[in-house]
């Protein structure tokens, strides 16, 4: 049976304060697939992530984004989340005084639209914490407040497990991690895919190394706001060997 398309990006062009950052992006993401988006610094990777999630600074000048047959091009951010879109932030915000647990419970209720008792939620959280090797004391701390880079990434993964999105955009979830932390993060992503097999993943990364742990179905190379090459996992190997300059020359 043919897989339904979960996310469809059509002819998408984006500006930030009159400065174009993305040009005519086209991408179809099927349920359960992993798409890696690779590119050098400033190529527009994070712009794409923020645009898909609906950040108000990113203005769509042309094109559309369809999520599971729903046009979300102009949808408010929180509605996108409720429709199954998730963004793991490269730099998650610190919000002192708001405990991880209370934030997660509010997010869970908002996204799933279900009410859950404090006790049941606690149990659910502890289960995922254990799967991600997160100490239970962690959930009593202020949201990202004083967290290390690795702790922030793990909290993003905890949300990925908890919120069970249809499409997860992971924005440089591998940045700033040593090899051991990278393995934990990769194992967390694998776990989330196992728990939620229809979830598709857009994995945004600068480096090839995380793709050794999570094998993408497709790789797209983004340069100067354009997708200049698409292919299978092999593309990432070529990139690793030759660098981005090779691909930049493809950009006309």
């Amino acid at each position: 049976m043919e897989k339904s398309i979960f996310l469809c990006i059509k002819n998408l062009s984006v500006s930030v304060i009159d400065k174009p950052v993305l040009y005519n992006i086209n991408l179809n993401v099927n349920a359960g697939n992993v798409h890696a988006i690779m590119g050098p610094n400033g190529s527009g990777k994070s712009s794409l992530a923020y645009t898909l999630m609906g950040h108000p600074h990113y203005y769509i000048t042309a094109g559309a984004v369809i999520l599971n047959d729903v046009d979300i091009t102009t949808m408010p951010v929180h509605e996108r989340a409720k429709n199954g879109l998730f963004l793991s932030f490269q730099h998650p915000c610190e919000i002192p005084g708001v405990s991880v647990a209370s934030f997660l419970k509010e997010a869970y209720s908002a996204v799933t639209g279900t009410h859950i008792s404090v006790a049941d939620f606690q149990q659910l959280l502890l289960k995922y914490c254990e799967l991600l090797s997160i100490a239970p004391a962690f959930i009593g701390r202020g949201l990202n407040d004083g967290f290390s880079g690795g702790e922030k990434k793990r909290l993003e993964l905890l949300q990925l497990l908890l919120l069970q999105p249809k499409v997860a955009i992971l924005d440089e979830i591998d940045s700033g991690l040593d090899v051991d932390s990278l393995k934990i993060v990769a194992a967390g992503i694998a776990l989330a895919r196992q728990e939620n097999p229809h979830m598709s993943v857009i994995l945004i990364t600068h480096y090839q190394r995380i793709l050794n742990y999570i094998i993408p179905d497709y790789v797209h190379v983004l340069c100067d706001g354009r997708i200049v090459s698409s292919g299978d996992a092999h593309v990432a190997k070529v990139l690793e060997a030759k660098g981005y300059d090779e691909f930049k020359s493809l950009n006309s």
Partner: protein
Amino acid sequence: MSLKASIPNYVFRSAKGLNREIVTEISRKKNEPDWMLEFRLKALEIFESIPMPSWGADLTDLDPEDIYYYVKPIEDQHTQWSDVPDKIKKTFEKLGIPQAEQKFLAGVGAQFDSEVIYKNLKKRWSDQGVIFTDMSTALRDHPDLVKKYFATVIPAHDNKFAALNSAVWSGGSFVYVPAGVRIDMPLQAYFRIDSSQMGQFERTLIIAEPGSFVEYVEGCSAPIYKKNSLHSAVVELVALPGAHIRYTTIQNWSNNVYNLVTKRAIAYKNARVEWVDGNFGSKVTMKYPCIILAESGAKGSIISLAVAGNGQHQDSGGKIIHLAPHTTSSIIAKSISKDSGISSYRGLLKVIKGAHHVKSKVQCDALLFDDISRTDTYPTIDIREDNVAIEHEASVSKVSDEQLFYLQSRGLNEQSARALIVNGFIDAFVQLLPMEYAVEINRLIAMEMENSIG
């Protein structure tokens, strides 16, 4: 409104403005002893001789001559809740007095306009010798006790509005806790301004004898009126050796009220005083709860929260005066400014020569909602002793687009996202409140957020 107009809701209302006749009339209506009348008249002279404060918030629109100084409701005092007229019960309902009211009704003394209309003291407290009554009744029934402590912490000449209160005070609570008695449930008083242009000048005095404990909680709300209204209270706390007083205030005045309040406590050997002070609403608030640590081992803490919205200036803070060695204190002042509101922290930390081994920590945190709101800090630190440990921290943060975006990307709408950020910011304050008040604060914050989107 003409004075001749029939106002059936009031037994007696004084003429607008202030003079010796009005002050004398107030005292006479209350059948006060001569010393109190003399005190009032002396205070009036002081009030007239002190100019309006030129520092702090803008008071130029406040005209003390355009205010009724005494209104007595037609309903007399009630001791049974079932005797309280429906009209007043409905007002309490409108104020949204929730479980707190239900739960602690038996111990509530509430002020309606200038007079306490309902008071009921739990029997076991009175059996223990606790006195919880309105100030006029205390003056009548316990004259020696009142005379011994009244205006000893805040004399009439302390400042212009303390002088005004001293001249025209009416209502307020009197609490006396005998030595060693620990009251395990907060004493609560609800009160509000009810009549347009009417000042409210309640006077509260709490005396905690050695080794006793009392928590006093007051919550205020006021409906919106066309003319400016003045609220100028005086609150005096006396914590005798080893006593512990916690005084919690949640004020939510309507946006035309001038809230100019003097609060001061004195803590003797090993005594402890806590001011917990939440300021919502009002046009202008000027309020700096003070603790004098008079003898060694005394502890004082002030934690305050101010929310300033459009057209509002919250000028608040705290004062701690260390007069003795081995005394400790802390001030945590949190403010939120939004929709062009102004919040100021104004504080004093004073340590006199000889007050060695003093420890103090002052922390002011301001949260700005937008680029048009404002926050200022005016800390005064006056330390005359070397052997002390003093910390001062100040922070200003802004609700950022990135924080909102992060929370919205997790399914929260903008209003919920802002409320969550604010609740995080005020968490340290809310932790100190009785549970019913914590619930009330969350409701107030949610209401404030509703009005601030856009």
